[in-house]
């Protein structure tokens, strides 16, 4: 709680810089307009104009906020909450691809980690490639995955989810390998003195002690998953989803729309990481680990 004041200060500073930069960046266009209309701009006029342009170089926070409200809350009130113009619809499209990819990535990552921990051959041959795969900017493949899967008749949610899966499985593998190996020799010996089978050792010792590692990786994984879903929406040509809103906004120079999609994506990321944090706290508490 003692961090609230410093955080507020930083956030206020960011907002102040944002408003000031908006004046600086949008001023040329404001002067341009004034010159053509043959009027002299006073300082207050200038500020008012730069903070309310239709296609500003940098929209100010309240413009973005009102755009977000117009495309979410206001549309819900008028009963069109799920229409194609509403950000709720686009967020839902991105969110479902993110969650599907995240779930697939978590399952795949956990299975791979179990294989790596229990099989020396896999540890030797697969683990280095898992690590190398992340130094490769794999997002470059995204357009190709979309097009190829489209060509074999798979379209819609799954191709995007595949990209999310690829981005989110890595943190899970690395975290789970570490977690499944975290019980020390003493604990493993204890299991052996109880004559525990391999399966029992896994379910009662290794898996429970890997939970803190799992949740730490899940938080990284879901953020990466969202990035994957957004990038996956770019090559399909701006149909639906937050990535499509970004692309459409950049085609037509709708900066306010880009920023509102961006902030919505940020809120979505924060929300998902927050939910995982909550599940983590509850689970670890019930397991007696926190």
């Amino acid at each position: 709680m003692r961090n609230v004041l410093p955080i507020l200060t930083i956030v206020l500073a960011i907002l102040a810089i944002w408003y000031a930069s908006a004046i600086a960046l949008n001023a040329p266009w404001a002067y341009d307009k004034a010159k053509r209309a043959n009027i002299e701009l006073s300082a207050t006029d200038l500020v008012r104009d730069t903070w309310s342009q239709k296609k500003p170089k940098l929209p100010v926070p309240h413009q973005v906020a009102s755009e977000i409200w117009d495309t979410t809350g206001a549309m819900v009130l008028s009963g069109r909450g799920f229409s194609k113009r509403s950000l709720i619809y686009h967020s839902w499209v991105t969110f479902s691809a993110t969650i599907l990819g995240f779930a697939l990535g978590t399952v795949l990552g956990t299975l791979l980690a179990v294989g790596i921990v229990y099989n020396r051959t896999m540890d030797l041959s697969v683990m280095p490639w898992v690590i190398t795969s992340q130094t490769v900017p794999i997002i470059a493949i995204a357009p190709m995955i979309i097009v190829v899967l489209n060509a074999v008749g798979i379209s819609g949610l799954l191709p995007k989810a595949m990209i999310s899966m690829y981005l989110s499985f890595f943190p899970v593998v690395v975290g789970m390998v570490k977690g499944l190996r975290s019980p020390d020799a003493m604990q493993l010996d204890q299991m052996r003195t109880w004559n525990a089978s391999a399966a029992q050792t896994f379910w009662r010792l290794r898996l429970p002690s890997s939970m803190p590692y799992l949740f730490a990786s899940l938080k990284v994984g879901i953020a990466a998953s969202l990035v994957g879903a957004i990038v996956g929406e770019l090559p399909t040509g701006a149909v639906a989803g937050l990535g499509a809103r970004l692309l459409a906004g950049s085609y037509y120079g709708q900066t306010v729309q880009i920023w509102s999609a961006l902030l919505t994506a940020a809120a979505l990321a924060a929300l998902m990481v927050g939910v995982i944090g909550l599940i983590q706290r509850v689970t670890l508490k019930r397991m007696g680990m926190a």
Partner: protein
Amino acid sequence: MGWLLGAVAAWLIGWQINSRLARRPLSRATAFAGPVIFGLTVILIWECLVRGLDISPVLLPPPSQIIQTFGASLPLLWRDFVQTVVKGALTGYVLGCSAAVLLAVAIDRFPFLKRGLLPVGSFMAALPIIGLAPILVMWFGFDWQSKAAVVVVMVFFPMLVNTVEGLSDTGAMQRDLMRTYAAGYWKTLFKLRLPAAMPFIFNGLKIATTLALIGAIVAEFFGSPTKGMGFRISISVGQLAMDLVWAEIVVAAIAGSAFYGAIALLEKTLTFWHPSQRGRM
């Protein structure tokens, strides 16, 4: 049918060799050979499956064809590499990382700011920053400057958080010792705290290498001059020239691994004293 049998045979042989290797005590040679054999096996299986199942090269070209295209279009690939990696990613990487380190050192003097900036910075590092790409392309134009700008923003926050954390990684005992030596703020910074922060800084630098390449490539999807890896990938996908796409991916893979490897090597030479580096081959 022959090709399919070949795929199965390649899998069996590769797996056999590796399980033999795994049973031996771990040495430098086995740690190197294992992954290499695994990689070769995968490539062989890929080649055999594509030929055996008659998969159209539009969907998945065989590795042999990718290598051919790679060799045939070297000048093109080189031009794209210079545009995206050298001009876009590297410029942004250097600017972003140095800005983050400088800001971290500046903030470090004010505990109040540090307490506020650390949570905000970690929050920003988790956001889909890549979404800023269309905005920055609008501001800085289509050429590499906008790509460098995207990279700067992407690497900035992970780097900042890591450096701030690293700078506070000195014990009270160590700082007291510096005080008994009558070392001032700057002396303590350069002789104790920056060296102690090195492992954290390198952790940030390593994360940032991948982010830099991703940022530079994805930013090109939002508009670029007629060269660059991201541009070539999105254009070739549209023309269904998948072999060229794969060739670009090979370039991206080599560039990414080399970039990461170079930073890791630098880390090893600069932080040889750190426990995590000691005793490693």
